[in-house]
């Protein structure tokens, strides 16, 4: 079985720089207390309702409903690492939380995160409109079976007022090594903040941008239509992609030797090291990807996002089938990356 999600195949427009496009909708049930206040019996009833709705749709959408406490802690961690659920979702207590995920792992519904439902569509490349189309259809299908909390004036009502209205977060995950190298990234991000966009590190709120991967999303969810929010983000993303390409060209023309040295060193370490922390691995993989995008290094069969999964602790433990301490993980990580990169480059 393919251990990767479909969105990791790096297909779709500008997929070399835009690693993924995501639409997330928050929905709550009418006349039901929000998840942080659910009592056992209300939670049970509510989960049953959602499970039935998901099961009704399972044939069309190939979704599978699962209670979170039926999954092992490692499997839960892997879902976070694949960006299918949020880190907060697997924090204890996980009782009365559930997920619905489709076969391709493009659709996920978190049940009882901050809101009753968090519907997420994740696609490769810059495909925000496409992701919205799917999210909208799935939302319609669910809405036919569940009574949503909605107000004509304020829109969809959410547990936190920062999300009301469309209750939508549209986001893109972008790889911007050249903007970081040419020290333009912070300037770009300051401008984004001024037009209501938020920039975060790889794993969302509170995480650093290791590996030059950034997540850009709309900060505001009320006052504009979903299509308008999406259009704004898509336009801004296209501009950022343009700047990143321009910065890459600049580096190649003006600092070719420095670039070649960086990417070859990264390749050398990844294919020869025996101990590798997750942070170092991600940093090096980012440099290797830049080298591959610029034709300085051979392409590998695995995509960048697939390889980054090998840097994550949960995924490594699921691959080896048992728990690993930090020191063991550093060794296994180095071994996996070393073997995979060497093998794939030979067969390319």
């Amino acid at each position, binding site marked *: 079985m393919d251990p990767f999600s479909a969105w990791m195949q790096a297909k779709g427009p500008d997929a070399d720089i835009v690693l993924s496009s995501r639409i997330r909708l928050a929905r709550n049930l009418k*006349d039901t207390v929000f998840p*942080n206040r659910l009592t056992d019996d209300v939670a049970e009833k509510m989960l049953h309702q959602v499970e039935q709705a998901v099961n009704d749709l399972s044939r069309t959408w190939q979704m599978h409903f699962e209670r979170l406490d039926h999954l092992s802690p490692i499997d839960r961690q892997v879902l976070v690492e694949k960006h299918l659920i949020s880190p907060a979702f697997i924090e204890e207590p996980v009782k009365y939380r559930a997920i619905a995920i489709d076969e391709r792992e493009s659709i996920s519904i978190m049940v009882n995160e901050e809101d009753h439902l968090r519907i997420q569509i994740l696609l490769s490349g810059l495909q925000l409109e496409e992701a919205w189309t799917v999210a909208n259809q799935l939302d319609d299908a669910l809405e036919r079976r569940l009574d949503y909390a909605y*107000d*004509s004036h*304020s829109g969809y009502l959410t547990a936190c007022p920062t999300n009301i209205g469309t209750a939508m977060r549209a986001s893109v995950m972008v790889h911007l090594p050249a903007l970081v190298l040419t020290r333009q990234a912070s300037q770009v991000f300051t401008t984004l903040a001024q037009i209501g966009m938020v920039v975060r590190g790889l794993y969302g709120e509170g995480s650093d941008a290791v590996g030059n991967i950034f997540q850009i999303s709309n900060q505001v969810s009320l006052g504009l239509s979903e299509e308008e929010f999406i259009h704004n983000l898509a336009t801004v993303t296209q501009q950022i992609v343009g700047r990143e390409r321009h910065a890459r060209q600049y580096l190649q023309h003006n600092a070719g030797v420095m670039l070649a040295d960086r990417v070859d060193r990264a390749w050398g370490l990844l294919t020869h090291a025996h101990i590798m922390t997750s942070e170092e691995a991600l940093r090096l993989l980012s440099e290797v990807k830049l080298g591959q995008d610029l034709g300085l290094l051979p392409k590998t069969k695995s995509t960048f996002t697939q390889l980054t999964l090998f840097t994550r602790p949960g995924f490594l433990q699921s691959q080896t089938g048992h728990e690993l301490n930090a020191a063991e993980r550093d060794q296994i990580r180095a071994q996996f990356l070393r073997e995979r990169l060497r093998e794939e480059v030979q067969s390319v």
Partner: protein
Amino acid sequence: MEQNSEPRQDRVQLCQRCESRPASVHMSTVVNGEKFDRFLCEDCARQEGAYHFMLVPQFTIQHVLGGLIGATPTGQRPQAVIDKTCPVCGYSYQQFAETGRLGCDHCYEAFHEELEPLVKRLHGSVEHHGKVPKRGGQDILQQRTLEELRTKMRDAIAREAFEEAAKWRDEIRALEQQHASGGSNHGSL
């Protein structure tokens, strides 16, 4: 402190706290200019707060929201606001101010007065222009169209474009009549 020196190469260094698991975290603290090095296992390091800054988002939207909710021009929240509770779920405004989260969908109505300015500060707007649920949404769509037409009519009157205003007025009337005769389809489908 001889035993607190660098881990020896010839055998596995054990955690200096629990002395049972292998040490995998090098924790270095500086107190009054003096540096202390400790080698701990992951669990002990976590308990000692080594990951505190790494793993816990310290400045989340909820934290900021708490401050915003409490902020009034005078800097004081009237007692009446503090005592407010949602009649449906019993959640208090005070709890909302502490957590940044509401208790249920009815809290929006219960705390409407306080929430409206907050929502405006957060979103720059208080009006939803997005998706309308298909079920029971026809009424809402019609209301939205009516509101838009009324704004256009008022605007035309303000510009003294009375012919245009009359056109909008007729459209409003037609829509209102249609609504009255067709009734509501709320809850259908």
